[in-house]
């Protein structure tokens, strides 16, 4: 657990970048710091590995004050992914990733073997290992950055806008990869972004900071969407709050009607809705694991206003109409 205790940072000559920040970032979870430009996100992040020293207050890792440890040793135990990757241009991808293991006394050989494994893990096949960073696309560089931070297998990872340099399509891809990775690794991650969608999608916890380094709200993504602490947070979370909120509700308890009127194949998988002009596509199906948001979208986009639920084998096992959904949504109230 990373604990901020009344942390204050005032830059000499500048204003207050972080103002009496207290929060607890749970172990093994990902906490995202989000907020408008200049609100102190980077400053907060960098105080954890002492790249910046707080003006007042303490930061504890598992109860131990970070200032109690030698700077360099502290940092070697904390992965740090910097904005724009910050790769060493003069080293190959492989050696970039092997940096920290070599620093901590691993043999070059062992470090490289490890690095190769990690590259694999972030989706970079072996042929990239011998290249230099300048020979990679932005998205690939970001992956190397992540691999490099993971190399020492640190329990904690700090990530400062790790996905900001890539285009939206690649970004989505990196998000998914990253979520998968984190599921395997279960690191304590602190990530900075100014993209609220990214924060809500990736964070187990989200800390919303506002100008002047104040913590506006700290909670789960769902808390933020359904119970914004104030106008600033609700403004920041943006429009579509209702729909966004549905993403956190599972479709598991949604009552369904028996399958009827839908063309099915031999295995019971939906083929489409029969009509005068032939079969009309279902435009997608959902499972019990999906969110109510997905279901809402499917109902609306369905040509007949009915969404199809399928089981693990892909066979249709229930239908949801506009009214079924309305009933369910209405019944959640009060």
């Amino acid at each position, binding site marked *: 657990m990373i604990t901020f205790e009344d942390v204050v940072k005032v830059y000499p000559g500048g204003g207050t970048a972080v103002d009496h920040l207290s929060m607890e970032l749970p172990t093994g979870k990902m906490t995202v710091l989000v907020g408008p430009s200049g609100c102190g996100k980077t400053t907060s992040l960098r105080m954890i590995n002492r790249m910046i020293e707080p003006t007042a207050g303490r930061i504890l890792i598992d109860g131990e004050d970070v200032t109690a440890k030698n700077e360099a*040793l502290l940092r070697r135990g904390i992965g740090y992914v910097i904005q724009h990757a910050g790769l060493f241009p003069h080293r190959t991808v492989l050696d970039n990733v092997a940096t920290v293991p070599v620093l901590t006394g691993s043999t070059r050989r062992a470090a490289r073997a490890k690095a190769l494994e990690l590259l694999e893990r972030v989706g970079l096949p072996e042929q990239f290992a011998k290249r230099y960073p300048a020979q990679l696309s932005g998205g690939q560089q970001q992956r190397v950055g992540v691999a490099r931070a993971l190399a020492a297998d640190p329990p904690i990872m700090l990530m400062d806008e790790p996905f900001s340099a890539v285009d939206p399509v690649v970004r989505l891809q990196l998000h998914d990869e990253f979520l998968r990775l984190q599921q395997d690794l279960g690191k304590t991650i602190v990530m900075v972004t100014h993209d609220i969608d990214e924060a809500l999608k990736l964070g187990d916890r989200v800390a919303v900071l506002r100008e002047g380094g104040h913590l506006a709200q700290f909670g789960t993504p769902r808390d933020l969407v359904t119970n914004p602490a104030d106008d600033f947070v609700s403004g920041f979370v943006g429009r579509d709050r209702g729909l966004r909120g549905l993403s956190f509700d599972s479709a598991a308890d949604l009552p369904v009607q028996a399958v009827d009127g839908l063309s099915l194949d031999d295995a019971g998988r939906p083929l489409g809705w029969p009509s005068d002009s032939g079969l009309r596509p279902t435009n997608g199906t959902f499972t019990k694991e999906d969110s109510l948001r997905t279901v809402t979208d499917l109902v609306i986009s369905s040509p007949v206003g009915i969404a199809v639920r399928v089981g693990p084998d892909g066979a249709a096992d229930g239908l949801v109409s506009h009214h079924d959904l309305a009933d369910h949504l209405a019944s959640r109230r009060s």
Partner: protein
Amino acid sequence: MNLSYLLDPAHWDLGASGGIPMLILDHLGYVALALLAGTIIALPVGLYIGHTGKGSFIAINAGNAGRSLPTLGLLMLMVTLLGLGLLPVLIALTVLVIPPILTSSYAGMRNVDQRVVDAARGMGMHPWQVLTRVELPMALPVMMGGFRNAAIQVVATATVAAAVGRSGLGRLLIDGLAVNDYSRVLAGAIVVAALAVLVDLFLALIQRWIVSPGLKGLS
């Protein structure tokens, strides 16, 4: 243009004290010593200023002031002060190579992407490791550029040593001039220019060898 002096095999006798090979050797000796002395003096200062950002005003202006010192005057001054001998030549040539080495090592360090330095610190490198493993290798292309400039300049300028009675390829120029032997002056000019090109090529090879291929196009 008369190449007879250059092409006369007698002037290429390896052992002869006034022969071109000996002159080249002496010339290269001055060049190497001056570059060595200049590097020892200018490199740490340039690196320090570039690394810390302190005193960059001094670096830039000292560079320019150094360039404005006339080598010939300095040389003659040193001879009148210190007498004949190698030292005056070395001092004058060293003063010549200091500015390019100083400014390029300073600029090389300044140009290092601060985000990369930040990443290095963030991984737990000690300051010395940051300097030697990250900043220096990244500054090398620019630094080598300055060093090569210094080398070309000092190869061309070391000829003034002959004006105060020293050896080196300047002898061909000064002696040729004194006896009105243009063929000899031409030989001197050609050998000096060729030597400069060769020295530059040699340094370019070294550069290729010590500069990471990842930095291609960043210099």
